[in-house]
Every structure is written in C-alpha cells, then in structure tokens.
C-alpha cells in the first residue's frame, strides 16, 4: 500500500499539512509536495540522509507567503517515496537521475535549487545536467568535491565504524541509528526535536529493510581511500559548480560538526566568490530543525530577488 501524509501520526500531519503527490522517476515512485501557485517561480528543497520533506516544514510557509511555488521531494529510499532494498539502486548517479527526472516531469523552469546534505551532490548534479532550468542555487551543510573531506567522515569512531561491512546493516539497518539517535545528536535543541520531530523520521523508516539507504549513502562519501566509489563523479561536480555563475547563497549552522562552516561554507565562497552569506543560523547538521523558519525567510528573500534579477537584470538589487 502506498502511504501518504494523511496516513502518518496526527502530530506529524499537523506540522506538514500538505497534499501528497507521486511521480514516477527513473523507474521508481517518488513522493513530493507541490504548494503555491503553479505559475509562480519554483523553489526546489532537497534533503539528505536520513530525512524527508518534513525536514523543510518550517521553511515552507515563508516561501509560500512570498508568493513562490515550493516543491519538496522525498529522495527515493526515504520518506514516503519507494524504498528499494537492492543496494545497487542507491548509487549517487541513480539518485541524481531521479531528481533530473523530477525536474523534467514537473517541467520546472526558473527554479531555485536548495541543497542540504546529499541534496547537494544529487541536486547540483541535476542542476548541472539541466542548467537552463535553474535561476539560483542555495547550499547548506553540504559539499560537492573530494577534498577537503570532513574530519567527521574520515574518522573511524564513530562514523566509519557505523557503516563498516556488517556493522552498517546492523547498526543503521536493524538498530535504526540514523533516524533515531543520529539525528537527535545532530540538532541543538534536542528536547524539542524529541518532542516534535523524532517520530516523523522514525515512522517512515519503520522496518530494517526500509533503511538500506541510511547505510549505503555514507559509503558513497569520498574520503581519499582506494575504496571510494564516487571520486570521479565528485570531481565532475566540482568542475561543474566552479563554472556556475548563477546567483548563489550559503546558509550554515553555527554548531555544525559534520561540515564545519569554517571549512565547508568557506569552501563554497572560494568556489563561488559572488555567493551571498554565509548566513549563520542556530543549528548543527540538521539546521532546519533549529532554524527552519529563519531559513525559510532567508530563502524567500533570496529566491525572490534572484527571480526578479533573472527577468530584469537591471533590478538585481
């Protein structure tokens, strides 16, 4: 049976009160919400591991209030989208192709692409593949290169141990460490997260077999080892984003320990000297949990200006 937002616990539904929609992408069923006027400038909000569209719930209202169209997909393998068990489905290239298919199927034009975590490598790969459809780009707690990698991702304790052979399927699959304790440890206001959000992430990844992507995606992060599987794709990504001259903005969590702002936000500014920011907000890796509304206002202002500038270059400011 296909679950929708209406099938989720009332507390989750009330915080994400949007209509479930589905679209077939790259051979899989993707869940998304699509709110606001269909002819308004679209903003595409992309999440990573192990989240789903719910992560953006507090950012959506300010974007809608600004008159924008908001499209929020659940990456295949997460949320209310299809969750293939076969690990070979979950390559970076397949996930990028999923988003390209979404952009094509919805015929998004003049889109502002907003990237968090794996929403970065996948969303930027999609943007580079469909550059004529994008107006602007925003990044937060994400990356698109091989070096520097995150010290957190290079360390055995706990990150590499968590997804090591056999340990990964147990700790992240059987024991659901990522949507459970993992997210809890990566927000600032943990009691609020436990009260308002935890259930939303665990309820959509209820069975061990549904959590395959939570331990296969960490294995796709290049950290300079011979076993890296995505180095070539990330080199292509870096070359591509360096050449991008779209309006860009950088938002980051002050307390981010996974992608520290002094390394990763700074790197985005080196790649995009024209980018706005860094807009620092309260937040660790899942900064939307602590500062979702503030992020929504920052994105609404940025997307509105970028769209206006695209239509009237003389009015960029």
């Amino acid at each position, binding site marked *: 049976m296909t679950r929708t937002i209406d099938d989720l616990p009332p507390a989750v539904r009330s915080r994400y009160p949007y209509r479930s929609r589905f679209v077939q992408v790259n051979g899989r069923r993707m869940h998304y919400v699509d709110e606001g006027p269909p002819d308004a400038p679209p903003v595409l909000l992309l999440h990573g591991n192990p989240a789903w569209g719910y992560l953006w719930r507090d950012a959506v209202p300010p974007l809608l209030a600004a008159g924008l169209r908001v499209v929020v997909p659940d990456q295949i393998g997460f949320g209310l989208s299809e969750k293939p068990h076969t690990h070979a489905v979950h390559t970076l290239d397949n996930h990028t192709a999923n988003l390209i298919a979404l952009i094509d199927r919805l015929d998004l034009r003049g889109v502002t692409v907003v990237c968090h975590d794996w929403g970065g490598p996948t969303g930027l790969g999609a943007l580079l593949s469909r550059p004529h459809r994008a107006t602007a780009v925003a990044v937060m707690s994400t990356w698109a290169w091989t070096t520097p990698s995150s010290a957190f991702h290079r360390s055995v304790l706990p990150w590499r141990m*968590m997804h090591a052979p056999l340990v990964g399927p147990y*700790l992240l699959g059987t024991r659901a460490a990522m949507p459970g304790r993992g997210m809890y440890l990566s927000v600032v206001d943990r009691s609020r997260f436990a009260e308002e959000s935890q259930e939303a992430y665990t309820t959509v990844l209820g069975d061990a077999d549904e959590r395959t992507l939570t331990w296969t995606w960490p294995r796709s992060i290049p950290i300079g080892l011979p*076993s890296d599987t995505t180095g070539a794709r990330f080199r292509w990504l870096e070359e591509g984003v360096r050449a991008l001259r779209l309006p860009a903005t950088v938002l980051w969590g002050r307390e981010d320990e996974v992608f520290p702002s002094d390394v990763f936000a700074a790197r985005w500014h080196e790649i995009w000297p024209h980018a706005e920011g860094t807009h620092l907000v309260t937040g660790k890796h899942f900064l939307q949990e602590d500062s979702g509304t503030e992020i929504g206002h920052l994105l609404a202002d940025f997307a509105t200006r970028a769209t206006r500038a695209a239509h009237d270059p003389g009015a960029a400011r």
Partner: protein
Amino acid sequence: MSALPIVEPAANRPTSHRGVPLLTEPSVGHYPEFRAFLARTFGLDTDRIGGPGLLSVDGRFYELVFLGRSGTPFPSGVEIHALLPGLEPLDEDVADRDLWAVLEWLVDGVGGEWSAEDLVTTGRIYRVPAAEQK
C-alpha cells in the same frame, strides 16, 4: 553478554537445523580488509563458492553464507544466519547478543584501525542494547 565466537569446521553443522537470516551485507569489500579477513578465516581464497562458514557462540550455531557478484572479488557479500532446530522460532534477544559478539569478533579480527573497543563505544553512542550491557 555472549562468549567469543568460535570458528567451527563445516562437519560440526548441526543436522536438522534451518537458517534464519539475521543480517545481509551486500558489499563486504567496502573496506577490503573486511573481505580479506573473512577470506582468510574461512579459506575462501582457494575454495571460492563452496560451503558456508560456521561459527558457534555459547553452543549456538551461526552460518555465514558468502555471496558472489559479477565484476566483484569473491566474496562480494555475506549473510549471517542463525541455525535453529526444526521449526523452533528465533529467540531475538539471544540472537541479538550473539550477533553483537560476532561483530566484535569480526572487527577485532580485521584489526589495524578497527577495534572491538571502538565498536562498543559506537554502539553505546547509538544506544545499542548489546553494547550497553557490556
């Protein structure tokens, strides 16, 4: 807390037992040293797809079923099955403790930068019951 797993000869596999899959790892070579340890321990370099590996934990038996995948060195993956007599259901708590003991044995056996101590610390951070009981 379960005892240290013991590598058993295939001849010790108990008769009239069935396998209950507990864990599937499709990519044991994600860190190649894990594949090397399993190949070394169960003689897989020379045997390729032969019989499964056998472990016992406190007298309970676990089978390691090795998987092959085109284009990937063997074994590409491994399933861990609990061996249970006849139609007896799985005792999930016991199997979970034993599985954790197997993971500690595995990580320690791989060695180098991998240690059971770090596994236990990781398990405690993420509140894995078997790790918290240690």
